[in-house]
C-alpha cells in the first residue's frame, strides 16, 4: 500500500564570477582541460575541468555531492585541493546540510560553483526557499538553482520556470536547472521547453545505451549535464553501508564506476557523495587516470553479478506474466529478504497478496513469458521468492 504522491507534493501545496577564467570560457566546447591543482598538498592531484553546457562555468569533472557529508572538514579539504563544484539542497536534513556547506565554504565562495535545489511546487514557495538557501549558505547568489527531483513532466509547472527567471533577474541565481531520476521522460520534455541551462540526472554503468542518447540530446540542445548517483547507489538501490560496498571500494569498482561516467564527454561534471577523506582521495583519481580495460572488465563482472538479481523497477514487465504475477513487486519482496536481510518483511508482503498469486508456482510453467531487458533471470528469481515465502 502506498500513496502516489510524495511528501514534497504535500509540503509544497501550500555577482562576482564564481570561477576563475570564466569570462574567457564562455562558449567552451565539451573538451576536457587538464590542469594542475593548487599547490597546497604534498602530492597534488591532477584535476580535469569541463565546461557546464553553455553556462561558461568551468568546473572539475569530479564535483562534490554534499548530501550525506557530516563533517565540514571533508568539504573544506576538497575545496583546498581544487574541487570547485559543490552541490546541496534545501531539503537535505531540513536545511542543516546547507548550513554546514555554507560554513565550510564561506572563505572560498567566490572561487567556487555552488548549487542548491528547491522542491517547492509554487513560484512563491520556490522563491521563499531560494531566500532561505542563500541565507543558510551565507551567499548572495547560487550559480545553479535546480528544481529538485522532478521525475514526471506533471511535476514541472511554468510558474516554477518563471520563479527561476525572476531569481535570475534579481541576481540571486546565475543559471537554472532541474534534477531528475527519470531522464527518459524529462530530458525530451526539457529540450522541448528550452527553459533550462542545466539538467542534473541519474547516470551510471548499470544503465542501458538509451541513456547515452538522452544525455547527448540534452547536451546537443545546449544544456549542461551533471551526473548524480554515479556509483549506482553502491551498486544497488539504497544504503551504501550494506551489501558489498566495502569490497567494491577495495577492489576499485567504485572508482571504476565514477570513471565510467566521466568517459562520456557529454557529461560535464559529476557529484559523487563523499563522507570522508579516503573517499575524497579515491574519487580524485578519476580525474587523473583514464578508464582502463581492466576497469571495464571489473564493471562487466559486477554487472553480471547484480544483473540477474537486481530489478530496476522499470515496469516494462508489467502484465507480461501469463499467470498474472506482479513480477516487479515479487522481485522487490525477494530483495527485502536477500538484499536487506528483512525476511519477515518480504514474507509479510508476499502473504498479503491474493491467494491466486501466492498459489502460483513458476516451475509449473513450461516456459516463461516474462523477459527482462536488463537480464534479470525472472523465472528463477520468482521461483526463489515462492520457495522462500510461500
Amino acid at each position, binding site marked *: *500500500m*502506498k*500513496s502516489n504522491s*510524495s*511528501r*514534497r507534493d*504535500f*509540503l509544497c*501545496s*501550500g555577482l562576482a564570477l564564481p570561477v576563475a577564467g570564466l569570462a574567457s570560457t564562455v562558449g567552451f566546447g565539451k573538451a576536457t582541460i587538464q590542469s594542475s591543482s593548487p599547490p597546497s598538498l604534498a602530492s597534488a592531484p591532477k584535476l580535469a575541468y569541463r565546461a557546464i553546457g553553455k553556462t561558461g562555468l568551468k568546473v572539475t569533472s569530479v564535483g562534490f555531492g554534499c*548530501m*550525506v*557529508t*557530516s*563533517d565540514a*572538514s*571533508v568539504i*573544506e*579539504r576538497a575545496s*583546498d585541493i581544487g574541487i570547485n563544484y559543490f552541490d546541496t*539542497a534545501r*531539503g*537535505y*536534513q*531540513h536545511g*542543516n*546540510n546547507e*548550513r554546514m556547506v555554507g560554513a565550510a565554504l564561506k572563505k572560498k565562495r567566490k572561487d567556487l560553483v555552488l548549487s542548491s*535545489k528547491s*522542491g517547492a511546487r509554487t513560484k512563491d514557495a520556490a522563491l521563499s526557499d531560494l531566500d532561505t538557501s542563500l541565507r543558510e549558505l551565507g551567499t548572495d547568489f547560487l550559480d545553479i538553482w535546480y528544481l*529538485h*527531483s522532478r*521525475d514526471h513532466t506533471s511535476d514541472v509547472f511554468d510558474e516554477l520556470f518563471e520563479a527561476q527567471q525572476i531569481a535570475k533577474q534579481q541576481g540571486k541565481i546565475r543559471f537554472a536547472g532541474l*534534477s531528475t*531520476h527519470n531522464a527518459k521522460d524529462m530530458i525530451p520534455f526539457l529540450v522541448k521547453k528550452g527553459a533550462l541551462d542545466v539538467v542534473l540526472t541519474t547516470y551510471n554503468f548499470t544503465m542501458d545505451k538509451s541513456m547515452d542518447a538522452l544525455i547527448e540530446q540534452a547536451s546537443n540542445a545546449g544544456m549542461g549535464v551533471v551526473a548524480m548517483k554515479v556509483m549506482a547507489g553502491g551498486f544497488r*538501490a*539504497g*544504503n551504501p*553501508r550494506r551489501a558489498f560496498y566495502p569490497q567494491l571500494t577495495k577492489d576499485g569498482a567504485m572508482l571504476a564506476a565514477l570513471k565510467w561516467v566521466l568517459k562520456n564527454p557529454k557529461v560535464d561534471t559529476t557529484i559523487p*557523495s563523499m*563522507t*570522508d*577523506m*579516503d*573517499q575524497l582521495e579515491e574519487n580524485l583519481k578519476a580525474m587523473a587516470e583514464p578508464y582502463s580495460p581492466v576497469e571495464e572488465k571489473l564493471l562487466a563482472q559486477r554487472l553480471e553479478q547484480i544483473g540477474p538479481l537486481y530489478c530496476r*523497477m522499470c515496469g516494462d514487465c508489467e502484465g507480461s506474466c501469463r499467470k498474472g504475477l506482479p513480477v516487479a513487486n515479487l522481485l*522487490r519482496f525477494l*530483495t*527485502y529478504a536477500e*538484499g*536487506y536481510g*528483512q*525476511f*519477515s*518483511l518480504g*514474507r*509479510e508482503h508476499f*502473504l498479503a497478496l491474493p491467494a491466486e498469486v501466492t498459489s502460483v508456482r513458476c516451475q509449473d510453467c513450461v516456459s516463461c513469458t516474462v523477459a527482462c531487458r536488463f537480464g534479470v533471470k525472472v523465472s528463477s528469481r520468482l521461483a526463489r521468492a515462492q520457495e522462500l515465502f510461500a
Partner: protein
Amino acid sequence: MKSLRLALLMLAVASVAPAAEVADCHLVAGWGQQGSARHFTADNLFEYVDGNAEGYLLYGFVQMHGVTCQSGGESILVDVFEMTDADSAYGVFTANLDPHLPIEKVGMGGQIMPRRALFCKDKYYVELAANSEKGQTAALRAFVREAEKRIPGRSTPPAALSWFPTEKLASVRLIPESVLGLRLLKRGFVAHYEQGQAFVVMEQSPESAAAVLSKLQQRFGEAAPAQVADEAFQADDQYLGGMCIFRKGRYIGGFANMPDPKDATTQAVSLADHIPGM
C-alpha cells in the same frame, strides 16, 4: 517446525507494529484519514522522500508507515520511520532538527513547530508536517503526544550524550559514518561547542579500539603522546585544528578544531572522565 512458524509470524507482526499503529489519523479526535496509507522500504523510499532518501538510509532506515490526516480544510502528514535501533532513531532526529530551537522532552527528544514536528522514541523516528499557512502547532502537539503513548520502549536519550562537557555545548549529533571525516572512526556521537567539537566512538573491544588509535596516530604524522585515559595523542591538523584523541577501554574520544592541541587535551580529560570505565 511449528515453533519456527510461530517465530516467523511474530517477526512479521513485529515488523508491522507499532509503526503502522502510530501512523493513525484517529490518534486525535476530529481527524480522519485522507487517501490510502503509505508504506516504503529502503528500496523505494526515494519515491516519497524525493532526493533525500539517502539521508535516512545512512541512519539504518528499515521501513516507513505514513498517513495523511484531514480535519476540515487542514491536513497533517504523519510518517513513522522505523530505524535499526534507538541510537539510529536519535541520530536521524538530530540530523533533521532545527538547531536554533530547544529539544523538548518527548520520547528521547522532540521539537514541535507551527508547521512541523519531529520526535524519536526507541527505534522510531516520527515526522509530522502541516500544510496550513497559519500553522497547526496545537494539532501537531496533540498528534505527537498520542503517538508517543503508542510507541513502547526507550525514552531516554543515548547515554553518550551525558558524557560530553556541558559548558558552551551547542548540539550533539550521531554521525552514522566517518566521524570527523575519518573513515577509521566509523560511527559515533559528535558534540559541537562554541569553539571546537568533541566525539565519542565505540569500538567492539579495547583491542580493536587500540588498533584504531594506533592507525589514527600514524595518520597525523607529527602527533605527540598525551596523558588522557588509557592512551592518547595530540596533534595539530590543517583541517581538524588542535586536537587530542584518546582511548578509554573500547571507546575512542577526543576534541578537535581547538586553537591549540593543549586546549584540546585539557578538554579531552574532562570528556574521558565521564566515559564509563570497563
